């Protein structure tokens, strides 16, 4: 009897899930219910699309024949409206019912629109989906010398600012926070980025609750973050905090129901903290983990750490972990590199334009590698495997095995 897999959502977690299922089960039927009428694409790419650095073809996360090759039925533009745990069916807005043996909820998130004085008087844009980007693209092209006001100096807001910069006559970013990118940068790093963005023509009004009547603008973008899309799960009675709670197998509290991606929260095996880590790599890995487990395999993922790679006007920011502990800072050749070290462990880092072999640091954080014998200045200097992996290097790093999941 072949399994019926149903996936709600059609983004990165879903892709991971499909590939996870197919690694184990070649035959079961997979139905993907996607509210957005698009081939799967990487959400972070919409700013590149808006900026013209990619296009509707290249933005596709997987090749055109992806669903076909993986034998998926893709319900494009169909929204799921209810999960019936008892009968194991998903109901769709067009009245369809889709039975499942195993279900993945990968509903992602939706833009958070905060209370903003005067917001009711204006048309505004959000910047999360491909359609958002297309709408904004149309608008900016229609509006000559547009003055753009962006609410939110986080990742989405600033990517939006960068994308629109060349079309707009003026871009102003407003945020209640006192610095840019507060979710990924400390004050020092934020200052570097703020200056760089200012030098590229982005103005900032920080530490300010926006009153729209105080600004002159033609286009308004609300980029104040996202909140997990948990409505379906909550209504079905799953345990939901800020996100849908999943365990290290990506299983929810309901039998045969899994969840992955931005709509979830979980306990990190690295930091011990329960919460959401809504970044793309996690979405894929959770999705894949769910897929493997749904198909009867065994997979675990809990090595979550916050990490981010993002760039603005040619300046690259790579960050990971938490900013806790003693810092070591290296500034050279216009770059900035800061490590956070505590109890002989690397806790986090912020790299700006000085990121050579950054992944080695990421692995040190994730694997909680004991660095107590290593001089922290040397660590902050040029990293190498030779420097940090003294024992087992030959067998584990350079020979036949891969690092992931192995304490070195």
């Amino acid at each position: 009897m072949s399994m019926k897999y149903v996936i709600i959502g059609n983004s990165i977690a879903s892709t991971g899930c499909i590939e996870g299922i197919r690694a184990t089960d070649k035959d079961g039927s997979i139905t993907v219910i996607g509210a957005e009428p698009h081939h799967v694409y990487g959400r972070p790419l919409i700013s590149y699309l808006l900026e013209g650095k990619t296009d509707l073809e290249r933005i596709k996360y997987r090749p055109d024949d992806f669903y076909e090759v993986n034998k998926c039925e893709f319900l494009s533009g169909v929204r799921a409206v209810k999960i019936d745990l008892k009968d194991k069916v998903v109901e769709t807005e067009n009245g369809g019912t889709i039975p499942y043996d195993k279900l993945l909820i990968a509903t992602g998130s939706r833009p958070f629109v905060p209370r903003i004085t005067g917001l009711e008087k204006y048309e505004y844009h959000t910047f999360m989906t491909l359609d958002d980007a297309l709408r904004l693209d149309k608008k900016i092209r229609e509006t000559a010398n547009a003055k753009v006001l962006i609410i939110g100096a986080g990742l989405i807001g600033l990517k939006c600012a960068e994308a629109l910069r060349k079309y707009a006559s003026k871009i102003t970013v407003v945020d209640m926070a006192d610095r840019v990118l507060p979710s990924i940068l400390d004050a020092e790093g934020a200052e570097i980025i703020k200056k760089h963005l200012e030098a590229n023509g982005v103005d900032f009004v920080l530490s300010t609750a926006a009153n729209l009547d105080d600004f002159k603008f033609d286009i308004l973008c609300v980029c104040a973050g996202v909140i997990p899309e948990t409505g379906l799960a909550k209504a079905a009675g799953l345990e939901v905090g800020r996100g849908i709670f999943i365990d290290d197998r990506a299983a929810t509290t309901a039998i045969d129901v899994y969840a992955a991606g931005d709509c979830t929260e979980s306990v990190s095996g690295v930091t011990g903290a329960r919460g959401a880590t809504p970044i793309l790599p996690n979405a894929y890995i959770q999705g894949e983990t769910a897929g493997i487990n749904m198909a009867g395999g065994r997979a675990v993922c809990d090595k979550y750490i916050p990490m981010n790679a993002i760039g603005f006007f040619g300046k690259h920011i790579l960050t990971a972990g938490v900013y806790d502990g003693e810092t070591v800072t290296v500034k050279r050749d216009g770059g900035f590199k800061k490590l956070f070290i505590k109890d002989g462990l690397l806790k986090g880092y912020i790299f700006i334009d000085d990121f050579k072999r950054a992944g080695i640091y990421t692995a040190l954080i994730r694997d909680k590698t004991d660095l107590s014998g290593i001089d922290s200045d040397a660590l902050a200097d040029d990293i190498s495997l030779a420097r940090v992996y003294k024992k087992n290097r030959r067998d584990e790093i350079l020979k036949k095995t891969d690092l992931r999941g192995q304490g070195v």
Partner: protein
Amino acid sequence: MKKIYVQEEWCLKCRLCEYVCAYANSGCENIVFALKNRPISPRITVEDDGKICFAVSCRHCDDPSCLKGCISGAISKADGVVRIDKNKCVGCLTCVLSCPYGAISVGPEGTATKCELCIGNAGGTPMCVRFCPNRAIICE
């Protein structure tokens, strides 16, 4: 599928591998034109930490974290080789952040580059393996 392995006891840190790699991936027929007076982007790095030295390049992991973290779907794996489609890569560097070997770097066009076992280049054997003077880099 063959993989590149290093035998660190034989690495001489001569760094020839870095140069022949840069040459192999330069698209230039002439090694002098490819490497003279220009920054080079080798996909293999010789680590030299005093007594220990060895070359590191992409391990083509069974469980590639670069591939899973790629935001644009530019990284794929087929026949044991992890490759980056530079046409799709937007240069966000999430893969640089993810690779536990530090084997991914930024290429001349701003996109991510890494060892692809010379499969796109002439000859079957990766250049670093062919030109290692002491068989410190092997492909098996």
